[in-house]
């Protein structure tokens, strides 16, 4: 039976339309809240495991000990002027607990959703709080703070489009996407991994990369990527935060660190303490 050309064309368009429906539905997820489309769950209580830079993080290094940091001449000069007593007298105890250094402090994080568009991170070290805003239309206001103003966005495989972790199948909750198939079940946030949370922070006060006065300037560029790593075979859950600090004022090249935190079952060990830096050991 012959089929007319116009009928064929109409039919092809119809097929394309039907086949593409789930994709469009997924596209509409953009209208959903950042919380509801979170490709990974980083909420919970996390403890820092100080397996790297131990002596620089658990202890206060001596003045002039700026191992590993690509300081330029000005950064070196400023680091050499560090005076802990002066900081304490001037009420600047939290300079080592600002956005550029807080993640390297031994301590615990409590991450939770403050609302549908804002993640909140409480640090027990220095009793600090950061708000990660997913609403890019928000503008920073007021004075600069130790933690600054952070804009967050999800990165990585779009929800429902990535390959599911092998050996860790996603539960089959109702919804769109998942299992790498269009229109399949949605992955619950608690088990999705592989994407990341990108955070860019501005409007912060000048602070310390290290406890011993190694500086970063208030105009530094600070970008962080939060990753929840695939569950370890022993059941541990790890959060990795990659931090990139670019600071032409004090650094000769970008300063990279990656800091790991282990998930804890509850907040029983979360113990807020004030900003306080122990004096460095005597000697030189």
């Amino acid at each position, binding site marked *: 039976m012959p089929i007319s050309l116009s009928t064929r064309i109409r039919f*092809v368009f119809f097929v394309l339309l039907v*086949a593409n429906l789930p994709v469009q539905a997924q596209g509409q997820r953009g209208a959903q809240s950042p919380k509801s489309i979170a490709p990974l769950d980083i909420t919970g209580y996390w403890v820092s495991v100080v397996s790297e*830079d131990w002596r620089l993080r658990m202890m206060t290094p001596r003045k002039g000990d700026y191992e*590993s940091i690509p300081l330029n001449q000005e950064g070196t000069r400023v680091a050499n002027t560090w005076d802990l007593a002066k900081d304490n007298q001037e009420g600047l105890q939290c300079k080592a607990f600002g956005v550029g250094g807080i993640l390297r402090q031994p301590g615990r994080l409590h991450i939770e959703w403050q609302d549908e568009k804002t993640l909140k991170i409480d640090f027990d070290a220095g009793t600090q709080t950061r708000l990660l805003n997913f609403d890019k239309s928000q503008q920073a206001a007021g004075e600069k703070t130790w933690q600054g103003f952070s804009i967050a966005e999800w990165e990585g495989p779009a929800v429902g489009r990535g390959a599911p972790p092998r050996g860790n199948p996603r539960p089959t909750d109702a919804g769109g996407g998942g299992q790498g198939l269009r229109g399949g079940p949605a992955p619950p946030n608690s088990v999705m991994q592989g994407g990341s949370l990108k955070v860019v922070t501005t409007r912060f006060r000048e602070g310390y990369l290290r406890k011993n006065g190694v500086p970063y300037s208030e105009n530094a560029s600070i970008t962080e990527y939060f990753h929840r790593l695939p569950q370890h075979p022993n059941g541990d859950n790890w959060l990795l935060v990659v931090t990139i600090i670019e600071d032409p004022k004090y650094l000769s090249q970008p300063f990279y660190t990656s800091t790991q935190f282990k998930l804890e079952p509850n907040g029983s060990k979360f113990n807020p303490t004030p900003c306080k830096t122990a004096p460095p050991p005597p000697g030189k």
Partner: protein
Amino acid sequence: MPARHFILLLVSLLLLLLSTPAFAQMNLEGEWAGRYHEDQTDRIPGDVQGDFTGVPLNDAARRYAESFDVTRVNLLEHQCQPYNLPHIYRGPLQFRIWDEKDPGTQQIIAYRQYLGTYQQWRTIWMDGRPHPPEYAPHTFMGFSTGEWNGDILTVTTTHIKKEFYRRSGIPSSDLTTVVEHYIRHGNLLSHVIIATDPVYLTEPYVNSQEFVLMERGNQNWLYNCEYAMEVPKPKNQVPHFLPGKNPFMRDFANKFGLPFEAVWAGAEATYPEYLAKLEAGSISTPSNRPDNTAPRPQPPAPPTSDEIKTFHVQGNVYMLVGAGANVAVQIGDEGVLVVDTGAKPMRDKVLAAVRQLSSKPIRWIINTDADADHTGANETLSQAGMTVNGNPAAIVAHQKVLARMSDESRPSPEWPLNTFFEDSRDFYFNGEAIFLYYIPHAHADGDVIVYFRGSDVVVAGDIFLTTTYPIIDAKHGGGVDGVVTGLNKILDITVPKYLQEGGTYVIPGHGRVSDEADVLEYRDMVVIIRDRIQDMVKRGLTLDQVKAAKPGLDYDGRYGNSTSFIEAIYADLAKH
């Protein structure tokens, strides 16, 4: 267009649209150079001894590190030893990643890596293949399989050789499993290593490091190592410090003004609670720290099933596992040669396994010692075989093996009647020279090491084991110095293919296929424990006092209970 063609086209279009979208995996290809913004002094200059911070080390690791004398790397066989997997990414490093795709499907079969430091090659298999059996050889880079979890490539590696987590002597055992995560953001690659080591760590040891994409590939990618005798030493000496005698232990703590006990504390010191202890000065000392020397997970035992597993070592030589002692089988045009025959209850299965390898007659059987787990199937295999004269296959051993088996009234068909009493014997079979080296007063007093020169395989008998400490049968003439002599003999024979890996393979009396690096670690262990006991004997300690001092503390987690070994060494040394 005919209607049926149109419908076909339509169906194809539909299938295309409804099929799973190919997952766009993160591209990791490129050349990556390390950035050392964490632990820089340890990772790059590494000039200060005694940095144990951040590592969840247990008491076995503490003892090992305390004993470690960095001049051990002067020993010939240690000079070209590369870092192992959990260590190599921490050192100065640039590496290259590329993928290998199935030409038919364009699916990634594997990621390949070339690491400029020590010129190491890695393959990360992505095709779902299993890891090798536990009796397969280990390498410094291990055997790796990977899978994508979203944008994170997760890699699991086993079969890693023993080496160190730090140059300060914190050991990483060959039972370590490593999980890596590769995460890319633009030109930055973050690499996470989580090492689980049942021998030397109390909990997984996690590290992460950054690499930047190299835009100019003009870095140094070659590593040349040629060992040379720098400080002549007797072969049975291994540099190490006796417990409590390492003068460099506190160098790191002293240089940076750190409390030594904190540097030495292990996992406890990596958690924030430890800050309060540091401030309060209430740091545990070794005497009040909770004891973590409880028995650790034991090393892999040979398969316990009654199945015989066959493993091709190389050349003409195969290893049969599961018969008691390991059995080596050499096959070729002239027939079959078997080294050791396993335990008697397994005789039929051993014979069946040999028959699976070759239908040619078993011509020769060699016994490395007289123990029943090495000689139990002598009769069965001999009777099933045939010399060129039509007799049962000839059984060759040192004459002391015959003497012992006859003393023990073993059935005469099990006896080795082709014996020798000289230091060595050689003959040619299946196109290669075969050497038998007699090692007196080692495991017992009839030990023979067999070397297949063409296949380049050594059969060590019970002089070398990967599952336990040496078993010294003092009643039958065994002694610790003979074991050391035997291990040194193996080291003389073996030649690594490249940087202490591969080349000559060694079949141990029990355990996995090994190479020179594995024998070397074992030799070092025997010498170090012998020296510790020797020192205690000289100081007049009783056997009970020696045992209480735990001279095998750093190796018990790997080789199990050291009581018999200590008793044998003590008795041996106390005689002199």
